[in-house]
């Protein structure tokens, strides 16, 4: 068997034996969204997705091969008056994704809810649960999911009520979504 039969992710070497890979193979696509809430949103009960606002740092990098992402609203917990700059889900194409979201917890928060990253349609969890019972808890959400088709993901309250009572609270969410494969 010639070594020329070797492929990497299905790509064979050239006639001279060289193998050139695009960055897409190495999953460097990033997709950061930095959000900032005011006092528009209060309680987000179980089963509802958490709205996130876009601020001036909002950005989508889709410069790498085969990647794209969109934001979508339902926003049924905030007034339609304010829905223009908000989203509550992110649509990702097929692939394997590593999702990280850092959330500034409000030190005065006293709600007892919890939330996690979910499949928007099915509610299936794609990461650990983040509790709001104490300020001294994790502020980093992670998820790792392989999607076989375009899928929407969201933050969703899974127990109790997540309460956003000030800008320093759960309104400060920064996303980093990396396409792994």
């Amino acid at each position, binding site marked *: 068997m010639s*070594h020329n039969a070797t492929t990497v992710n*299905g790509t064979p070497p050239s006639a001279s034996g060289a193998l050139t890979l695009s960055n897409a193979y190495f999953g460097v696509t990033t997709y950061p969204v930095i959000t900032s809430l005011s006092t528009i949103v209060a309680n987000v009960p179980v089963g509802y997705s958490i709205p996130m606002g876009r601020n001036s740092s909002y950005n989508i990098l889709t410069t790498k091969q085969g990647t794209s992402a969109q934001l979508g609203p339902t926003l049924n917990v905030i007034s339609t008056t304010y829905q223009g700059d908000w989203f509550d889900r992110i649509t990702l194409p097929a692939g394997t994704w590593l999702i990280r979201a850092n959330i500034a917890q409000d030190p005065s928060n006293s709600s007892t809810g919890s939330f996690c990253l979910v499949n928007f349609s099915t509610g299936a969890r794609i990461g650990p649960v983040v509790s709001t019972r104490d300020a*001294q808890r994790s502020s980093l959400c992670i998820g790792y999911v392989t999607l076989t088709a375009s899928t929407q993901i969201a933050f969703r309250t899974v127990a109790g009520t997540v309460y956003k009572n000030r800008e320093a609270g759960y309104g400060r969410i920064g996303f980093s979504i990396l396409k792994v494969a």
Partner: protein
Amino acid sequence: MSHNSITVNGTEPNTSGDIAISGRQTILIGRGLQSSYSNSPASGFSAGSTLYFYDTSPVNTIPNATISSSSGWVSSVTLPAGDYVILGYFSALFSSSGSLEFVWYKGAARVGNGAVIGALTLANLDGSRLAQAAVTITTTSTFTLKVLSSSNVSAIASQGNIPSEESWVMIERV
């Protein structure tokens, strides 16, 4: 030259000659699954106790890395030689104002920073919530998250699903 001598990031070709590589070699344990901590092998939260993570199908894309578990409860991760960033977060229920400190161990040696979580009434608690270690290992090594200190952590029988739902480990080969 045999094609079997070719590897990419330690990954060998399959029988068809294809090398399937992922840009990020990752381990992720703990994804919100529910199981009472009383189902785990944990014996307590005293200093030196092992902390357990629940995941019946953890992600592991690091070649030759192994995850030690029993009935879905993970006790340790064994990694081959290489450079890694290891993150660990553990969540627990408290009976009253208290705290839980934890840190990564490589074998019997501490590595990385200690992390601390606290109960609601311990409002002034400060410090990292994440135990993080950046390590270079030259031989296969086993990593375990252990308790450094604890105060007013509820008994294992009272923890319920909180540790399984909220605790996690992420390891990335760099």
